[in-house]
């Protein structure tokens, strides 16, 4: 691979310039066509909180810490540990994208160019990096990714993410992605990112809406229950 291609790959990493602590406002189109608005709060790659914003979803959260995730619902006293089978499709796709560090965690096995699109075959450098393989298609002229195919260690396609539009091309922040689950349902999910806030940036902090009234129902991103403490209510 030429150094030019290596530079292209490194530069195409989405959310590359994302801050360590951030909040995303987004929505996806539900299976029944309804808009599902939500927020994703992240600290580093290990800690994330998904807060559902629709009225019917009030009080519902998904908390991820490392590879483990819990669902918090108003009808259930305790957080419910979510097996991979329960991973929420849209959130997972986005979360996966946010965690993706192409330049750091992957090496390119091959690169092919056709009609201005370079397709990289990427392989995780270390075991345990998710996903183990990625097929990454980049628009050479604009330096922006077009498509990502997340693949299993056995090189089976698992999820397809298409970047439809960008809200910040420079920072590689997409505006709309379409995620397709290739393993299970095969259905496509459209995710629209409305805004990305840097939580370490005081100006962003000020732009936050006031917290919902029963603030206790919404744990702050830093106070995720530890995996061993399921029986307790999240503080």
């Amino acid at each position, binding site marked *: 691979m030429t150094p030019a291609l290596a530079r292209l790959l490194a530069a195409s990493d989405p959310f590359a310039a994302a801050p360590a602590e951030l909040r995303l406002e987004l929505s996806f189109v539900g299976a029944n066509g309804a808009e599902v608005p939500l927020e994703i709060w992240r600290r580093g790659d290990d800690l994330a909180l998904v807060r559902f914003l629709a009225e019917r979803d009030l009080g519902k959260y998904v908390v991820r810490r490392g590879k483990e995730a819990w669902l918090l619902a108003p009808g259930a006293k305790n957080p419910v*540990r979510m097996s991979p089978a329960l991973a929420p499709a849209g959130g997972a796709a986005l979360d996966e994208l946010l965690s993706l560090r192409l330049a750091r965690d992957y090496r390119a096995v091959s690169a092919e160019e056709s009609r201005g699109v370079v397709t990289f075959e990427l392989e995780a450098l270390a075991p345990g990096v998710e996903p183990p393989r990625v097929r990454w298609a980049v628009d050479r002229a604009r330096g922006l990714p077009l498509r990502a195919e997340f693949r299993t260690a056995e090189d089976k396609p698992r999820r397809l993410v298409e970047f439809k539009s960008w809200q910040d091309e420079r920072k590689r922040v997409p505006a709309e992605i379409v995620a397709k689950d290739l393993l299970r349902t095969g259905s496509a999910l459209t995710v629209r990112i409305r805004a990305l806030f840097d939580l370490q940036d005081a100006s962003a902090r000020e732009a936050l809406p006031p917290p919902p009234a029963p603030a206790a129902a919404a744990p702050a991103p830093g106070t995720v229950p530890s995996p061993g403490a399921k029986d307790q209510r999240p503080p």
Partner: protein
Amino acid sequence: MSPLEIARLALRNLARNRRRTALSLAVVAAGTAALVVTAGFVRFSFDGLRAAMIHGGLGHLEIADAAAAAARGAALDRPASPALADWREVRRALEALPHVTAVGANLHLMGLAQSADGRSVSFVGVGAEPDRERRMGFEVRLREGSDLPAAAPAPGADAALLARGLAESLGVRAGEVVTLVATTPEGTLNALDVTVAGVVTTGVAELDTRFLKLPLASAQRLAQTDSVSNLLVGLDDTRATGAALAAARAALAGRAAPLAVTPWSERAPFYGQVRDLYLGIFVFLGTIVVVLVVLAASNTLVMSIMERVREIGTLRAIGTGRGQIAALLVAEAAWLGALGALAGAALGLGAVLGLNAAGLRMPPPPGAVDPIDLRLALVPEAFAGGALLMILVLVLAALLPAARAARLAIVDALGHV
């Protein structure tokens, strides 16, 4: 010779070798009784199966969004999406129809059930209305605990009935709490704590490993919807299904989002298969009975003719026509059939009543859970049909030997010893 005289003479001839006649009668009677009892068993099985299907969750009619029903296709146990939003109005229209005892709404769910100690098992669930299901005659086969309360539970007081296998896999008993996780129609997840009100069986071993039932309100809370998947219509008389189907279709015609009205029989292809299977067995058994009776009867008929060759020669010599000889012999067979069938009907009646009085239990059929109380049906058609069949069979069996006897050369027959 008038038919009456032929019949009289034939009856006399039967009395000639009483032991042989008794034996033939016994064969015919046993055959008839076997048919009657088998028919009773088959009818009992059909009726039981039908009642189990209708009152075990199918209802007589199902109303579902036509598009959702079409998407569901042949996979009947796949949950229909909760596509019926205006189900309350639809129900009001349906409950006004004749023969309708109640219309219950169902919300189908799939998801994971988790116990407090972290065990998790996937489930298929249905949100239902216990008060209406009771009115529809649906049965809840409780093994433990109690049935769901009739009233919709308040938030936080949700309860569920878990099928045996599911409760066992989760390691929970009545009174304990499990958390249900399911996907909402939008595709997000939701979770709900439910108290196990009772442990039930669906009657189907396979389904018992994953079935649960909860009040419609709880199911809707879990699925975050006000809609339902379908409505089930209960009738006061299964025979009114066709009429009610037409009435429901007429009442629901002309909606913007068309509804599919499906009778129970179409939602239970299994019923048709079992029916065909039983009918096949019945026909097979009937064939065996007929063959046995034909073999036994034609043997005795031939024997009784062989014994009487000289007499037949005499009758021919003094002016009995060939047709008269044949008619006489066929009449003897018809008598055997009629008397044997009569005895067989009595025997079959006795057997059915006796078996029913004995209170026998059948082991559970394959895939089912509970043993079945044997209650053979009395099928009038089987009595009449069995008797006619026996007469017909004997007459047919007699035709050839009778024709042969009628064609004997008189002089040879007279000299026959």
